[in-house]
């Protein structure tokens, strides 16, 4: 089953998002988070991101989809991925999807044994999802 890694500048944000993901998609999907810096500030940390990716890689035999918020998250993620073994790097895909909506859509797709491409596509759909009912 595909697993997820959620990256944000805020630890509270990804902790809350993980709760939402578990409630919507169930507990079967492996989800790890990397939020904030090592000293508890807002920011991103390559070592924390690398640890989260390794945690999900260990928890599932499937591939891993990474979702992130803004700005330096991408730079920290790049450093974290450089730190992985090539075999692990090959199992990691990075989604451009909005973090909250993308995580939930990706997790539901993963929970029904969606392929890595299906999970990536589900997450990508979050960019254009309709939220407000038609008036």
């Amino acid at each position: 089953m595909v697993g997820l890694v959620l990256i944000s500048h805020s630890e509270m944000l990804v902790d809350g998002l993980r709760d939402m993901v578990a409630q919507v998609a169930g507990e079967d999907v492996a989800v790890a988070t990397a939020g904030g810096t090592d000293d508890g500030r807002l920011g991103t940390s390559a070592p924390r991101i690398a640890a989260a990716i390794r945690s999900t890689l260990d928890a599932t035999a499937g591939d891993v989809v990474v979702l992130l918020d803004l700005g330096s998250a991408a730079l920290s993620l790049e450093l974290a991925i450089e730190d992985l073994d090539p075999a692990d790097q090959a199992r990691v895909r990075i989604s451009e999807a909005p973090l909250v909506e993308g995580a939930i859509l990706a997790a539901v797709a993963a929970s029904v044994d969606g392929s890595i491409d299906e999970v990536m596509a589900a997450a990508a759909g979050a960019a254009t999802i309709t939220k407000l009912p038609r008036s």
Partner: protein
Amino acid sequence: MAEVRLLVLDPSGLHTRPAARFVKTASRFASRILIHEDGREADAKSLIALLGLTIRPMSEITLSADGPDADEALAALTAELAPFVSPAG
């Protein structure tokens, strides 16, 4: 092709958590399953498609299934939705 018509009663419409459970149930079946609402339709196995319908309370929806396990699929999905719907007249 099998069909069932339902009226959405839940005041929140078909919101994210029941929609996700619905998608997970639908995904267990081989049949092609669609949810129709007011002239639009969505693949019942896609959460994004389902949420995109933004189904409101008191909407009438039709579930259709086409395939070898169509009847079982509709029975399971109707049971899944039972807390949120009533049979439509």
